[in-house]
């Protein structure tokens, strides 16, 4: 078959909801798009451990501490499922990690913001994991099998993350005045970055059309952002704190909330590396990678030595 026929067959499979598996023929752009998207997703899970890890030793109770530890461990697991999905596309794990460390690969901009108070852990679980779930649920039906299967596992686990975050917010909002203020302050700082997690507006998102045609994406950035606002606004009302957007109001005719435009300049600036914590996050990753290199080498040397001595025993 020539390339045109292969491409036609490929698109037919996608149109008929037949999943693409690693050894199937796929257009090079499809492969490259997935490698970029899945590895960025993996990097986001891994870098995402850093802002939360900051609070593990200072969690206010043992109950909160075990929950946060379990959540951060889950993020590591999610990163690993996703790295393993990336590898099915023919790229080595080391190469993927090298791209993160060199700054060539991106990760979600949200993790370039600092976690200043305990309420930030609540806000991250509620808003950041909430937005991530909104993005990830449709990815469970992504056309690429290994990515979709990884997402099913991730989504199952992620729902505890969001609930524990909201529970933290609820406890603070039903607590003292100072605690409620802390929750409001966290909402003020995390709201807009959370909305930006869905990516630029559809009109500025050049890859959306192709990704939708390939069924990597099922909804546009703006559709998901609207859904997030619709679901989250009543949750903020229940907490009794206000979303920092003067334009946010229920639109009876549309059946949706109207809301303001995120500051896209800030979004692009953080992507360019100028967020409050970009350098800190990347340095932490590089430090962990470099300082762990002797462990990786020692483990390999040990495995080699052990297998040599087992072979000797067999010969004897």
């Amino acid at each position: 078959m020539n390339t045109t026929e292969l491409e036609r067959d490929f698109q037919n499979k996608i149109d008929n909801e037949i999943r693409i598996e690693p050894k199937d023929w796929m257009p090079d752009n499809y492969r490259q798009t997935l490698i970029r998207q899945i590895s960025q997703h993996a990097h986001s899970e891994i870098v995402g451990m850093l802002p939360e890890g900051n609070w593990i030793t200072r969690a206010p109770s043992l109950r909160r501490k075990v929950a946060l530890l379990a959540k951060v461990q889950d993020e590591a697991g999610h990163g690993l499922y996703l790295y393993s999905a990336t590898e099915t596309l023919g790229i080595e794990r080391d190469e993927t990690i090298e791209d993160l460390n060199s700054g060539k690969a991106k990760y979600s901009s949200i993790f370039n913001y600092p976690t200043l108070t305990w309420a930030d852990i609540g806000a991250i679980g509620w808003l950041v994991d909430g937005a991530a779930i909104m993005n990830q649920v449709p990815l469970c039906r992504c056309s690429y099998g290994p990515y979709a299967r990884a997402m099913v596992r991730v989504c199952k686990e992620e729902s505890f993350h969001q609930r524990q975050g909201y529970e933290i917010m609820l406890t603070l909002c039903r607590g003292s005045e100072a605690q409620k203020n802390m929750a409001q302050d966290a909402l003020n700082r995390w709201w807009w970055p959370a909305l930006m997690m869905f990516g630029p507006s559809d009109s500025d998102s050049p890859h959306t059309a192709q990704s939708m045609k390939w069924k990597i994406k099922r909804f546009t950035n703006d559709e998901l952002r609207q859904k997030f606002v619709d679901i989250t606004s009543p949750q903020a009302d229940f907490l009794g704190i206000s979303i920092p957007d003067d334009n946010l109001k229920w639109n009876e005719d549309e059946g949706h909330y109207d809301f303001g435009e995120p500051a896209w300049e800030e979004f692009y600036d953080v992507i360019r590396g100028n967020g409050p914590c970009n350098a800190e996050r990347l340095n932490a990753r590089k430090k962990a990678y470099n300082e762990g290199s002797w462990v990786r080498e020692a483990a390999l040397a040990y495995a080699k030595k052990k297998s040599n001595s087992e072979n000797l025993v067999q010969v004897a």
Partner: protein
Amino acid sequence: MSKRSWPLWEVFIRSKNGLHHKHVGSLHATDSQMALENARDVYTRRNEGISIWVVESKSITASDPAQGEELFEPAADKIYRHPTFYKLPDEVKHI
């Protein structure tokens, strides 16, 4: 760099007795023992399994999707291998 990287292993989990081990994903480890330990941490944090198999990915031989037709088409036209191929009167019970 690739020379120094840890081998890739495929992980299979039996969720409970009576069911097959099922492929769940892959991971890197230097040997089978480490692969088992890592599989436990990565793939069974929520009681997903009671038994784990790990096998080095390079040991798996897979069929080629391009040969799909020659491998699997022959089964498609053998409808006489299915019970519904055989027409029996309704009066005949339990068959």
